[in-house]
């Protein structure tokens, strides 16, 4: 049986720590997946299941025997191409209407978009109501595996509850307005 320990480090070029027994077993077994994930195995040309090879592997138990091609790892990157700040003006059962102010090109006129509720992240659904503020970003995402794709992110702003300090500011402004209005 293939040891999970032996195969777990899929993104290593060589499997470190594989036991002699498991290495030999790998050499004999066609493995297409491990723990449900596809694996491509490249066997060392010298790997044979002859007794002499077994003896050699016992003598050099830590020599690499399995090579798994691995994508080069790179940091996640998001190239922002366009961003709007939106305010929800209308909510239907299955869609929302949003007025969008262009944050990338502030000189551009506002847009209005009707967006399906399916585009709203599950975590944000509870925030969807008239007056809710959202940020809509469009750009290219490059994943750690090097995959580049265009993406659209709609995230609703989580505004903090009214703090005492904010309420104090509101009350102060109300007092100023009352004075201005001469009441």
């Amino acid at each position, binding site marked *: 049986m293939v040891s999970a320990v032996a195969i777990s480090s899929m993104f290593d070029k060589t499997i470190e720590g594989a036991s002699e027994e498991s290495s030999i077993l790998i050499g004999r077994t066609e493995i297409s997946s491990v723990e449900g994930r596809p694996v491509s195995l490249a066997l060392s040309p010298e790997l044979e299941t002859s007794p002499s090879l077994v003896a050699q592997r016992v003598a050099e138990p830590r020599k690499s025997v399995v090579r798994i091609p691995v994508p080069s790892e790179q940091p996640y990157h998001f190239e922002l191409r*366009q961003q709007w700040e939106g305010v929800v003006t209308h909510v239907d059962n299955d869609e929302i209407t949003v*007025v969008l102010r262009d944050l990338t090109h502030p000189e551009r*006129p506002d847009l209005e978009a009707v967006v399906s509720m399916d585009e709203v992240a599950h975590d944000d659904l509870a925030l969807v109501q008239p007056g809710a503020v959202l940020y809509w970003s469009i750009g290219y995402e490059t994943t750690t595996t090097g995959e580049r794709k265009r993406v659209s992110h709609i995230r609703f702003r989580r505004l903090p509850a009214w703090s005492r300090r904010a309420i104090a500011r509101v009350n102060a402004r109300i007092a100023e307005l009352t004075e201005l209005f001469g009441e």
Partner: protein
Amino acid sequence: MNLTVPPRANELEISLFGPGVGECVVAHIGGGEWLVVDSCLNPESGEPAALEYFKRIGVRVESDVRYVVVSHWHDDHTRGVSRVLEASKSATFVCSTAVRQDEFKTLIAMSRELNLKDSTTGLDELNQSLRCIEERREAGRRKVDVGPKFAHADSVIYRRDANETLASCEVVALSPSASALARSHHDIGALLAERVAKRAIVNITPNETALVIGLRFGQAIAILGSDLEAGSSPNDGWGAVLRTTAKPGPGQVFKVPHHGSENAHHDGQWTTLMAPSPLALVTPYATGKKPLPSEADVVRLKQLAHGGVYVTAPRPGRVSFSDRMVEKTLNDVAKVVRSRGSRLGHVRVRVSSLKSSPTVELFGAAFAA
């Protein structure tokens, strides 16, 4: 037709600006004095439409603009109004009496706490305008000169007697009614009760507290309908306007309320307030599920306004981006995408205070329906 020619001293001018979503009226009330009602931006320059126009016709904004009026607080009527007021150093600021209510003051104060990146909502503009007034008062100027002046049905905003060279002039408020103001206490209070979590404040409907302005300069009369809707009872909306005692008489020019919508129509507007062949001026509201005016609205207005129906801007077309990837993604994700205006339109009407026929000029995106 020359945009840069100012009106004659005895001409009433009503200039209506609109880019698709947004409305601004500037009015010449004789002798080089001007009134600004609401504000919108020119989408191509980002500047308030009123200030750009004044610059082109040579108006000295700091001294010649007598009143800056905010008819109501919705974004499409307030963008840039604080800049207009700052430039209009001699102006009195006028707004609806609804703003005076404790509930409304709370709305203004709370709006500041939202801290939107682009903080130019209607309430923010109103707040900035009031800051400007506070500074002028702190500098020693009198409330009667700088405002805020609160107006409601039958309030007189401005009155000038006739003299050797100029006809008399009167600017009056025809709304909101006392009933509508009482109702707004409840409506705004309900809005505040819902605001447990912070969020932007969206419009209250129906709009019954907007300020309708009647203008009379000699024999020339105009009614500026703002966004006032028909009203939920005869004591509100246009039913109440028809019962005001300050009505200036049959008007030749009607700035049609609420972008020509059916729910702002009242037969009495045309039978009581307006002369037999009035001009109808409309700003569109090119947004929402039912952009205004609809085709049916235009048909109705053409049947009523025999002097012609003039619209500041057509519905904006398809939205395009220089970045094709952004355009494609936006159209993939959204079911509908519309611009809220890309080109400013300007309808200019001038009529002599001696009651000659009005002349209409169209600039930019404006057109005759």
